[in-house]
């Protein structure tokens, strides 16, 4: 599975913001934390704001704040805002029937993989991901 850059940046931003819901961060703050493009992140944040998961705080000292439910929002909820996790098989549509069973079998296998991927991402809440991240920090220290 290869996540699109927008999905990955959205996960970075939402987890960073959700780690302290009372805190406001600018796009630059978040981009610096992950060494990513502020310009690209700003576009991603606009989508997150439209979804209601993030709130934009205007004015001096403004920024972004987490506005969702940390124990209900899953990683897939965030990814779904940017892409559908469906493997694409670039199969020709020639109308020739000979190879059809093989093409269908390969499609069925990729669907199985996609379903497993979604089952994983749809059951990891932001809270669970953040708790696991904190455990990693503790283990590193």
């Amino acid at each position: 599975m290869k996540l699109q850059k927008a999905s990955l940046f959205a996960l970075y931003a939402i987890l960073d913001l959700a780690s302290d819901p009372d805190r406001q961060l600018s796009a630059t703050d978040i981009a610096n934390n992950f060494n990513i493009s502020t310009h690209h992140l700003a576009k991603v944040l606009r989508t997150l704001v439209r979804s209601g998961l993030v709130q934009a705080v205007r004015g001096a000292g403004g920024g972004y704040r987490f506005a969702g439910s940390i124990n209900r929002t899953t990683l897939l909820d965030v990814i779904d805002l940017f892409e559908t996790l469906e493997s694409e098989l670039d199969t020709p549509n020639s109308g020739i029937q000979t190879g059809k069973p093989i093409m269908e079998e390969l499609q069925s296998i990729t669907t199985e993989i996609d379903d497993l991927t979604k089952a994983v991402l749809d059951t990891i809440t932001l809270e669970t991901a953040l708790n696991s991240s904190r455990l990693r920090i503790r283990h590193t220290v």
Partner: protein
Amino acid sequence: MTPQITIRNATLADLNSIIKLDSVGTEEEKPAYWSGVFDRYLEDGRNERIFLVAEIGGEAVGFIVGEVRAWEFGSPPCGWVFALGVSLKMREMSIGQLLFKELCHRLKQAGITSVRTMIDRGNKLVLSFFRSQGLRTGPYIELEKQLD
């Protein structure tokens, strides 16, 4: 005020409560199944079989059942959780977490170092719960087919 939650071993007197608690999740009462589980899991002195009940004010509000299984599917001894239920009206009070924590504690006392379970892929609630407790996809893959 947060009510006092007690985690204790199941007793035969819990049978009807467990059947009811289980039926909330599965929408089906299974008295014969649970009678069998009580017969097998309530024996004294078997620390590889664990059947715990969460109680608030004398009422059973949750349960967890697990055991140590060894060498099935080639797996070294490992703890298995095969049933967990919490009363609908008592959700989000960490009852499942307390039950799972105590079960893990008992497994550790029995010398076990890992715990696993199997959950319907569509059961997002229970899958999310076990993930929140730190479980990840394990080294085994369940395979099945429909018999013609």
